[in-house]
């Protein structure tokens, strides 16, 4: 049996939903480089060029690169094309006004492309280093996460269990005529499910699964404002008083598992609730954790957190078919 479930957790991979800065291609800009024809002049050239063209804000770019198999094995960045004097044809004379840098040892300049910003992830780094040597302060966790290898098999097995509960809740709700979406709030330290909820928008248009789950968490701490008890698929674990949070940031440190990417309302509700991390199965058209917005990495907001997608992605995706089926049935009825 263990083998079987191990197999199951191999069927999906959780990938991080990174910020735009981390996931976009790094912008490239043009610069003049020149071969160093006299190697002995290298350190003087670098020093003098740093003085004349300091390449402000581009500390990630190395000034000199080694070129294998070339007549001149070293090349140096002279300046950005944008800071060069306006000229028809660049020559070393025109780039280096007399008195500033002695030209000795420099060959004919040519145009190269260099990254405008430091690379933030390994894929960005791999891309930009092909253009010009660049330094990279690697966030190892992001690198491992992008390979889909952040979570160990035991961790994945737990994630699998939690998302399975969310899937079950989604199906229970769907049988009541709700949209097939389920959500589970977990205390990852205690490895304990705090609340399970499903979409209830048939009875209240704003009761999306995430909103339901947030209110159930409030219930678990003696608060809450809706009676969800009439839904057997919605439940919460009453916490001992000692664990009830004295402040309204009730989801601090909790993980949310939700079958599909939350909408803007639900995503922002999770920001207000200071959620720890979010895991979702499948993307949604107006989703706010990757599709339309990345509210978890929005610059101006005061709470940021990690979001992962793809947990039981296939099974979560299949829920949309359940919805489709029901929609077809109801539209036939209404006809």
């Amino acid at each position, binding site marked *: 049996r263990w083998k079987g479930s191990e197999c199951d957790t191999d069927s999906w991979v959780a990938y991080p939903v990174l910020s735009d800065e981390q996931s976009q291609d790094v912008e490239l800009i043009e610069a003049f480089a020149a071969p160093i024809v006299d190697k002995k002049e290298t350190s003087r050239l670098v020093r003098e060029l740093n003085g004349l063209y300091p390449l402000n804000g581009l500390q990630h770019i190395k000034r000199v690169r080694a070129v294998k198999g070339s007549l001149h094995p070293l090349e140096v960045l002279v300046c950005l094309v944008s800071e060069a004097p306006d000229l028809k044809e660049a020559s070393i004379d025109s780039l280096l006004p007399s008195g500033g840098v002695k030209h000795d040892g420099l060959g004919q300049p040519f145009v190269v492309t260099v990254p405008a910003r430091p690379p933030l992830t390994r894929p960005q780094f791999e891309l930009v280093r092909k253009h010009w040597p660049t330094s990279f302060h690697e966030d190892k966790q992001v690198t491992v996460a992008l390979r889909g290898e952040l979570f160990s098999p035991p961790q994945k097995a737990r994630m699998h269990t939690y998302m399975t509960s969310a899937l079950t809740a989604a199906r229970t709700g769907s049988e009541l005529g709700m949209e097939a979406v389920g959500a589970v709030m977990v205390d990852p330290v205690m490895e304990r499910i705090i609340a399970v909820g499903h979409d209830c928008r048939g009875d209240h248009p704003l009761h999306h699964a995430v909103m339901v789950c947030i209110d159930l968490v409030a219930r678990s701490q003696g608060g809450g404002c809706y009676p969800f008890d009439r839904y057997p698929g919605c439940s919460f674990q009453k916490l001992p008083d000692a664990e009830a949070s004295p402040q309204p940031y009730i989801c601090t440190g909790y993980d949310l598992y939700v079958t599909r990417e939350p909408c803007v309302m639900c995503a922002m509700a999770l920001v207000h*609730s200071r959620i720890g991390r979010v895991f979702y199965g499948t993307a949604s058209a107006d989703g706010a954790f990757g599709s339309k917005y990345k509210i978890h990495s929005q610059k101006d907001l005061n709470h940021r957190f990690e979001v992962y997608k793809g947990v039981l992605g296939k099974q979560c995706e299949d829920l949309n078919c359940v919805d489709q089926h029901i929609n077809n049935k109801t539209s036939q009825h209404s006809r």
Partner: protein
Amino acid sequence: MGTEEGRYRLSADSAEGFLPSDEEIEKWMDSAFGMAKDALENGEVPVGCLMVYNDEVVGKGRNEVNETKNATRHAEMVALDQLLDWCGGCSLDVSSVCERTALYVTVEPCIMCAAALRLLNIPVVVYGCRNERFGGCGSVLDVSSADLPQTGSAFKCVSGHRADEAVEMLKTFYKQENPNGDQKLFFC
């Protein structure tokens, strides 16, 4: 009220054809500010919020985050719940009421509330000051007018009404709450 005609009009049209007059704005914002002042005097978050349908207040809200331990209980969400209850009580169709309902609030709705207002197809939001930290009508994100076909319909904003007064009340509140001036939560 809630005529068939209103029901099937496109949301853009209904927003176009449905805009409160200056006198209405004056009057209902005055009530919203009254609520905010009241809240401030009682040591509560000074945000006043009401929903008006057919010249009648059908929803009123104040922030209930602390007592419910639910961080989503912003004044707008509370007012929307009242509107839904009101529709239920009068056996009126929610969507036809919503598309002729205006929200008056002293502070720009946050991203969450703006999305909730879209989901219910509220066509007009009149607000006082901007919400620099969480605003969903342009200050942080522009949820009100964004292209989100699965998230109800875009709504019109009328902003800036007695904005300075709204800011002053918030400042007074946060000074009381937090005399040391640390970064403090913003409940709206």
